[in-house]
């Protein structure tokens, strides 16, 4: 992140307060860090069992953007801290996500720089490595902002929120959406496009054509219960909204 230009000003690990890592001061808690620095965002790498505590701590210290990289956070924890953040007017990205990046400017997370280049395409994705694959394939066009929304069932910022942000963003000309089976965020996005709320061109790809029902495909959120959020339901919703759906990640560039 630092190599990419992100100004990392403080680390927080209880019990390690007063130490330094590569010249960056470490604090016992977020409140101490906030007293010493002007902090705009917090990135949580804390293991699943303790991640919720870290999120609440960042929110209560007045930080308005919290990126949660951690996987395996219990859903009830996420459900509660996402609502807590919303009541405070703060934004959560993730959990279980690679973060957010503005190529050649700033990275909050773990996306590998080699796959990205500055440009005009906004990418919103539910998958990490698939985002790198797609960004890499679109390197000749480049990206304005890339948001990994996360693979969990409940996330702070979903594909719909990300697409709405791209609609408002003057740096973004077209939007690439990488979805997968499970949940209904793709269907809700399609409905917004149908109602004219998003006018920029969207090209979508959905992973999970061959995924069996009621089996979890790696991501906690990639599972179809009660037939909700199946591959077919998403593709149909996109097509009804005149959103181009790429058959493979490598067909996206042709459709843009």
């Amino acid at each position, binding site marked *: 992140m630092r190599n990419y230009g992100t100004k990392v000003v403080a680390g927080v690990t209880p019990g390690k307060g007063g130490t330094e890592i590569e010249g960056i001061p470490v604090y016992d808690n977020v409140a101490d860090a906030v007293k010493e620095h002007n902090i705009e965002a917090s990135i949580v790498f804390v293991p*699943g069992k303790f991640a919720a505590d870290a999120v609440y701590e960042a929110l209560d210290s007045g930080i308005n953007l919290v990126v949660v990289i951690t996987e395996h956070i219990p859903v009830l924890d996420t459900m509660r801290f996402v609502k807590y953040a919303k009541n405070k007017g703060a934004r959560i990205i993730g959990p279980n996500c690679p973060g957010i990046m503005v190529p050649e400017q700033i990275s909050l997370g773990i996306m590998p720089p080699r796959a990205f280049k500055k440009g005009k395409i906004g990418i919103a994705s539910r*998958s990490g490595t698939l985002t790198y694959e797609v960004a890499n394939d679109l390197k000749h066009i480049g990206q304005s902002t890339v948001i990994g929304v996360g693979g969990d069932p409940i996330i702070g910022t979903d594909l719909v929120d990300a697409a709405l942000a791209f609609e408002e963003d003057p740096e973004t000309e077209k939007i690439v959406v990488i979805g997968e089976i499970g949940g209904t965020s793709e269907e809700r996005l399609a409905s917004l496009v149908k109602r004219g709320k998003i006018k920029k061109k969207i090209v979508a790809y959905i992973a999970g054509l*061959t995924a*069996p029902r009621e089996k979890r495909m790696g991501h906690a959120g990639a599972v179809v219960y009660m037939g909700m959020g199946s591959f077919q339901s998403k593709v149909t919703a996109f097509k009804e909204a005149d959103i181009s759906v790429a058959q493979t990640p490598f067909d996206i560039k042709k459709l843009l």
Partner: protein
Amino acid sequence: MKLYEYEGKRLFSKAEIPIPNGKVISEPLQWEGKAVVKVQLLEGGRGKRGLVKVTENVATTISEFKKMGYNLFLVEEFIPHSKEVYISAMIDRDKKEPIIIASPEGGIDVESATNVKIFEIPEERGVRPYDVTMIEKYLGVNGLDKIVKGIYNLLLTYEAELVEINPLAITDRGPVALDSKVILEDNALYRHPDILREFNRENVSDGYVELEGYVGIIGNGAGLTMSTMDLVKLAGGEPADFLDVGGGANKEHVKESIIRVASNEKVKKLVVNIFGGITRCDEVARGIVEAYKEVRKPIFVRLVGTNEEEGRKILIENGIKAYEDPLQAIGDAIRS
């Protein structure tokens, strides 16, 4: 972690949801009168497969099931009833609140039910009497207070993904849960050691999902792995599994993963798709080479990331096909 029917019903009892009197056994049993014998399996669709039988002769039925290779049974009293409905509780991902799902068409596959209604019950306030009356009115039955509160509380207390009663029988003595389907959330199991102990279960899920095909699939990252399965299908092949080795995979883990996938007899060849950011490709390649010595099935590897050239060189020197382009790797695998 999916629970067996009888385990789910034990949770139902704790939550005061009425269930039939019954016994879990593995040997034939003398039973007076009409009973239902149900094979205990984690897979669904038991009814369609003939693994649920209403019988006057329990011992014979169990012997027959045992001959078919089944070993765990739930024997229950037969419950005469006038109506069956469907009811379940889960967390709505978009509303970020618990919901109750109900349908007057019980006993069937809820996905094919034409009338299903969702009742949102925010966690902050919990189940209120008017929630229950609305659900009762929709289903056209009475006396659901304990049922609605029971499944709602189980959902939140044990951190379930799904608490389902299908069917819920409506009888003269009130509603009775004839079946149970409870799935606990793997990520929250560490908070419920009492349940794991009581059912003598441990969480063994490693994310591996077996499918019907013959092309073994391994990738890094869930989306990329799923996409690899889809690409194999689109190229005319049939994926045999889903296995995500995750980020920063080391040699041992890659080796074990390949052996795991290749040990499936149906697998004729393997496609490995690694798009590494920080993943060291030479490390991955060495894991693949070691596994290849043991499994001796053709492996087609797409390998991109740190030290990728070194990684591909190691593979090629050991007779394994290595690629930069995933479509080419998959194409060659299908044609081979």
